[in-house]
């Protein structure tokens, strides 16, 4: 179920009404059922993966904390994903689940059970580490298989062919489960926090399962930390009118960004990056600018709706975007763009690798590895790896070459220098989006080649399309200017209430003026 469907606009109020009527424990049950229903609306089969991730990480974290569940319970839980899949095969014959898939799930459950039981008998410190490896191993195996197996198979085939060999092509059609990268990373982050002693293991399976599958942020983030979300789920919330005010405001801003900004910019971006489109320099620039606002409106809009939906339940989700296109340098950009992911990579990869504590070359290595993997996280495609590498190079240059500090840092007080730095960073960001949006390296080459051709006859006239783009980004920029001072993209509370009322009205009108271009959120595919 997508946020921008009428189903969600009915689902959410229904959940809200029931949620605030139920007592503490009942609310968690409701949230878990609602979250699983929300996810099952996409594909009921893949709930087995959500269950598997939840069970593996719950049991491992508990064991890391020195608390072990009874053997029979562990076995029953380990077999639950297999049971779910066999239920799908029995009651949903069209689901394509056959005995082989069920057997694989059961075998995986038994393997986990065996590993879990064996590890418990190790010495305490070894045991903690082994449970961490077990959790990471299983979760990344699931993620790797569903997201990257086909990609690596294909890449290996291409490499062998390039080397003059003739390998047999193995084709494996694997459907990518929605949101798998998000909930896997969230769950893994929790286990690592427990291992580090930064967070206690969650004793309640119900609470942990709700944390892992919390519907507002499950499929596209923000990637929440256990220590931030779990205590909120455990606390019995008392309704406050602020929840309603803030939640509705966030949802409205989210819809505005997605429906008015992103979906309308997508029309131009999709044309410019479609195979076979004749591009000149104007359209190459217009297309990538349209994509920059499309992906920003799309993803930050999703985040705002997610935060708004959670806020209505009395739960605060992490901020994910903070005026990223006003960044003055690459480091600042990653502190403003997809904050929950960049901090995840910082805390669980960059810092464990050594961060910037070692020699210069070690910092360069750590930044490079982190950004390459951050790029790959976005999808099984070489352009994402290239995009990660590109941003890695920008970060490395910014860090190791003091001469490049002219891009400006946050402490810089000169307005002129700040504007210049923002403009330069904007151009660098656009170049990154061109890599990101290209379907493959060949298309990226065509886009770059178009920058060398500025004759009008090659492509369509661009001026009216540029006006279309401007019409759709100007209100967004105006909103950002209004909220800039308060460091929160959705903060309108400082304005007098009549002005806010007019802004809400205007936003609603802009949303409904664009309702027929509905498209799915981009980040669902990641």
């Amino acid at each position, binding site marked *: 179920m997508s946020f921008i469907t009428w189903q969600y606009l009915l689902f959410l109020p229904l959940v809200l009404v029931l949620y605030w009527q139920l007592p503490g424990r009942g609310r968690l049950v409701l949230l878990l059922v609602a979250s699983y229903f929300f996810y099952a609306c996409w594909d009921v089969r893949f709930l087995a993966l959500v269950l598997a991730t939840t069970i593996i990480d719950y049991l491992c974290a508990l064991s890391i904390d020195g608390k072990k569940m009874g053997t029979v319970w562990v076995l029953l839980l380990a077999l639950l994903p297999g049971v779910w899949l066999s239920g799908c095969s029995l009651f949903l014959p069209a689901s394509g689940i056959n005995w082989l898939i069920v057997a694989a799930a059961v075998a995986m459950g038994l393997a986990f059970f065996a590993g879990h039981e064996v590890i418990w008998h190790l010495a305490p410190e070894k045991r903690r580490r082994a449970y961490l490896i077990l959790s990471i191993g299983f979760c990344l195996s699931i993620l790797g298989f569903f997201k990257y197996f086909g990609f690596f198979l294909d890449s290996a085939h291409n490499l062998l062919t390039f080397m003059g060999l003739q390998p047999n092509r193995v084709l494996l059609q694997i459907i990518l489960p929605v949101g798998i990268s998000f909930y896997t990373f969230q769950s893994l982050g929790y286990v690592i926090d427990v291992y580090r002693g930064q967070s206690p293991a969650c004793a309640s399976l119900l609470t942990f399962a709700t944390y892992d599958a919390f519907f507002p942020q499950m499929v596209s983030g923000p990637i929440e930390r256990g220590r931030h979300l779990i205590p909120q789920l455990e606390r019995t919330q008392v309704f406050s009118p602020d929840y309603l005010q803030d939640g*509705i405001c966030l949802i409205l801003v989210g819809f505005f960004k997605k429906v008015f900004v992103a979906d309308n910019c997508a029309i131009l971006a999709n044309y410019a990056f479609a195979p076979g489109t004749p591009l000149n320099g104007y359209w190459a620039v217009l297309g990538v600018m349209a994509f920059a606002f499309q992906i920003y409106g799309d993803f930050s809009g999703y985040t705002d709706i997610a935060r708004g939906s959670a806020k209505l339940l009395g739960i605060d989700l992490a901020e994910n975007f903070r005026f990223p296109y006003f960044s003055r340098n690459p480091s600042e950009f990653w502190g403003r763009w997809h904050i929950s992911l960049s901090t995840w990579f910082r805390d669980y990869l960059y810092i464990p690798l050594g961060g910037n504590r070692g020699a210069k070359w070690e910092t360069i290595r750590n930044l490079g590895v982190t950004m390459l993997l951050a790029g790959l996280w976005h999808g099984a495609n070489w352009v994402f790896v290239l995009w990660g590498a590109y941003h890695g190079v920008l970060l490395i240059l910014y860090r190791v070459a003091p001469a490049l500090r002219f891009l400006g840092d946050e402490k810089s007080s000169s307005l002129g220098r700040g504007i210049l730095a923002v403009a330069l960073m904007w151009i660098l960001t656009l170049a990154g989006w061109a890599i990101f949006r290209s379907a493959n390296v060949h298309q990226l080459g065509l886009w770059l080649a178009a920058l060398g051709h500025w004759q009008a006859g090659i492509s369509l006239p661009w001026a009216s399309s540029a006006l279309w783009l401007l019409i759709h980004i100007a209100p967004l920029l105006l909103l950002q200017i209004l909220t800039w001072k308060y460091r929160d993209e959705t903060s309108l509370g400082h304005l007098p*209430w009549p002005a806010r009322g007019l802004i809400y009205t205007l936003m609603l009108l802009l949303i*409904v003026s664009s*309702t027929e271009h509905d498209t799915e959120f981009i980040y669902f595919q990641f």
Partner: protein
Amino acid sequence: MRITKCLPPAFFLAVLLLVLGEVGARLFFAKSVSGRFEYGYSLNAGFDECPDGTVKLIRAGGRRFHPQSFKKHRPPGTFRVFVIGDSVPRGPSFKGGYPWLLGQELRERDIQAESVNMALPGYGAQRCQVVLRKALEFEPSLIILHVNDSNKYEDEREYRRSQEFKSWHPRNWPMKVFIFRRLYEAKMEKVFWRLVPEQVRLKFAVNDPDAQVAASEDANEVKARMKVARETTAASVALAQAHHVPLLLVTQCRLLTDGTRSFHFEDHGLDDLGRSLTGQGVYHLSMKEVFSPLPHARSYFSDSGHLKRSGHLLLAQAIIGKIRQAHQRLGLTAFNIELQSKSY
């Protein structure tokens, strides 16, 4: 907890402004709103029947009639012609379309005539039939039905919308609000279509009219819409015959070029259709037959289907010729003026 305590004044103001806008639109523009959500399938939208017996054609319910008026009951001795069709008979302007020029030509021939342009842009055979049903209430002497096949998709889309709007389905709720719907349509027509190049829109057929244009190139689509045009037009002819109202079918043709100076006309089989329906009180005029003998036929067209004013004038005179042939059966006892030669 009371909802008034939960929501701040800003939300109330937003809701109030929207409610006031909607109520105001529905109160002060009630006529314009009427039939709006029937998408051309309302019998009465656009017809304002005044107590004094005058019928006004207005822009209402999505019908963009040229504003005109006539008496509900045909004045004695008046030859009343209603022209029903799509953007082609509607013309480049009210006085540039053949319905107006036909009235002028008839009056120049001392015939007390009123010719009413009831053509609407984008109307296909199905919605033209709805207009025909209403037009038959106003005692026409002759109805000219301009038969085209290019608006089937739009007819179907609007029919689908009209049915959807009758349903309870939540996806229709926002668009049941008049100001929302009007804003959406205004943005689509005044901003989207004007600013975004057709190639960009067609590449992904980002909305229904674009999908229509894309589909218009498809052979199966052409065949399917011909079938609908044929069946619906036959039903419209039967309807006019049942009311004993003479009907002239003007069949559309398209001017096709190969990018050079050469061109030819294509009628998609509409001429055969028109001929096959000719009978008691039903006449036929082929646009292809009117224009194809002319050496500079291309100069009468503004695009592949629409005519310039000169083309409309030529068509009006061809219709005069048809009326002249059948003037006695049409009740015109004196039709004594020969066709004048005019420079187009």
